[in-house]
């Protein structure tokens, strides 16, 4: 086990910069998730840590060792690939034992390592099968088993769940988290799915366009997004973003472009007189007869919660209610806003105020 440090890491393919100076500190035993839209450089960053891509500038450390110049096999890391990358011509047992065989371990030593790993993952009865004969979830587990057997310093996961169906993905999510709690090995996990990031991570690194937008715990990112990108990326359905300004007379009133007044708890001085964006999470609204009148557009009940898309001024306002509501499209209803849970961003820079 070890800590991992990215120090001002850069990567370019020719003149095209993909990673533009990334600094991330990962402490020993932490479960860190790199998340961002596709093409943001998160997978490249992971592959640089694995040694599969060169580092153009900066430094990557595993423990106290700078690993920039080390070959993948010298870094003592294990990686789970998106397509699992199981060796098709080897049985499950051989797949898991491959790294040990290369190290020259004898049969009994291999068995004492493979057996318990297979047990943890529920693969004991599949050891003699070939990857072709396994389902997606089983292959996923074999790939994890191959990593566990190595007992590496760091686990790397590259979008491991994206080839699974929705139900299995939820199950595997829990399994991976449980596995981490059991082994407590430093883990770096890449995904584009913010729900995966929110549910599994100790620490999330939100990336966009080769840069780190924000680093923090899941709830940190949810409660205090540093900028508009993070605010829009974390949370589902996405945060409502409403353009407007603060009332010159009363900083507790936000006036939208359409003239609607929204509540603000404590605005920063500097916010006065600037173009702002009012961030309002769909979950921070309630339907209790008082508050803002909106016109109901679409109602989508999902059982556990009800999603309502309403019109506020000219734009859509997405609301999520935890209770069942009986409103009809076209109806005017009043939603009250939890002012504590609202966010203000500078419209120009996107930074939180």
């Amino acid at each position: 086990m070890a800590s991992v440090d990215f120090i001002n890491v850069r990567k370019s393919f020719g003149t095209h910069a993909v990673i533009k100076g990334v600094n991330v500190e990962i402490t020993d035993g932490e479960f860190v998730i790199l998340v961002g839209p596709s093409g943001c450089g998160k997978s490249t960053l992971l592959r640089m840590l694995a040694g599969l891509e060169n580092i153009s500038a900066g430094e990557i450390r595993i423990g106290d060792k700078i690993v920039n110049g080390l070959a993948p096999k010298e870094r003592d890391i294990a990686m789970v690939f998106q397509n699992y990358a199981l060796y098709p011509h080897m049985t499950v047992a051989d797949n898991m034992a491959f790294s040990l065989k290369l190290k020259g371990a004898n049969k009994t030593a291999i068995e004492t390592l493979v057996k318990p790993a297979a047990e943890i993952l529920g693969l004991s009865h599949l050891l003699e099968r070939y990857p072709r004969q396994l389902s997606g979830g089983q292959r996923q587990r074999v790939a994890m088993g191959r990593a566990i057997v190595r007992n590496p310093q760091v686990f790397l996961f590259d979008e491991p769940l994206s080839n699974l169906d929705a139900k299995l993905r939820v199950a595997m999510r829990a399994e991976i988290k449980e596995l981490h709690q059991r082994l407590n090995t430093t883990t770096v996990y890449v995904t584009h799915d913010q729900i995966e990031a929110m549910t599994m991570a100790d620490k999330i690194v939100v990336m966009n366009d080769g840069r780190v937008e924000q680093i923090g715990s899941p709830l940190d990112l949810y409660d205090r997004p540093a900028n508009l990108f993070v605010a829009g990326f974390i949370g589902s359905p996405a945060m409502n973003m409403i353009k407007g300004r603060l009332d010159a007379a009363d900083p507790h009133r936000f006036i939208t472009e359409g003239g609607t007044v929204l509540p603000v708890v404590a605005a920063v001085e500097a916010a006065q007189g600037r173009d702002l964006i009012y961030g309002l999470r769909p979950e921070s609204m309630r339907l209790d007869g008082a508050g803002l009148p909106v016109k109901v557009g679409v109602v989508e009940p999902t059982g556990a919660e009800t999603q309502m898309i309403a019109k506020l001024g000219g734009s859509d306002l997405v609301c999520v209610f935890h209770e069942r509501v009986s409103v009809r499209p076209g109806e005017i209803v009043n939603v009250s806003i939890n002012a504590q849970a609202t966010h203000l961003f500078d419209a120009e820079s996107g930074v939180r105020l």
Partner: protein
Amino acid sequence: MSTTSIMKRRSFAGLLQNNTALGVMFMLPAGVFLLCFLTYPLGLGVWLGFTDTRIGRDGVFIGLENYRLLFDDSVFWLSVFNTILYTSVASVLKFGLGLWLALILNEKLPLKSFFRAIVLLPWVVPTVLSALAFWWIFDSQFSILSWSLIQLGLIDQPINFLGDSNNARASVIAANVWRGIPFVAISLLAGLQTISPSLQEAASLDGATSWQRFRYVTLPMLTPIIAVVMTFSVLFTFTDFQLIYVLTKGGPVNATHLMATLSFQRGIPGGQLGEGAAIAVAMIPFLLASILFSFFGLQRRKWQQGGSE
């Protein structure tokens, strides 16, 4: 008249509804083609082998006499030996060099597609044309190889490439290898490209050196394709005719006569159609053996079989 035509149309429509009849009809063109151009010549060849036909004179059935004569014919046995030597040495070399070339071309190289196109050239050039080029390369006086080696001071006089038995054998094998490599290299390259790069990455993370990656990942995954490619390569080489015919015509002193060239020489210029056919028929057991060998070698390995839970 109208009733019969309706009947006919009806029965034809009924035929179209019948799957078996329809299937036979679809296969008919291919069947006729195979019958005319494959079965008939093959059958005729086998038949001729049992007769004493000569050019210009119909023969009579003489049973196995042709084969008995061949059995005592030292030139025939020399040609069998030559064919086996030619096929085995050339195939091994083609496989080794072809695999090596395929591995190189599978790396990230500048001008990769250009090199891939270049590699195919020997295969695209008509055999007779390349054989003629080799004829000049192996010429006893004007050989560019001899000339270069003399200029380098390595030898004093030109090498007698095609005049000496062993030199001649080596020379025709070299020409065949040159011609056969592209097929092996490009086919194996296609096979290499079906191997996911993430397998190589996984292996390198698992601690494999590049040799171990080749030995434990690339090679086992390539074996099915190697089996197909080498079967074809062996069949092509075993039945080779053009290169030998242009370069040596089987000489010197039959040292490079293959079964195919001997069959032709006895049958057409020699006029002994029956004997020539018998030699050609004698190739069939060898070819069948290599096909059977690859058939059993090619049977799908356990790991390739589909997943039944």
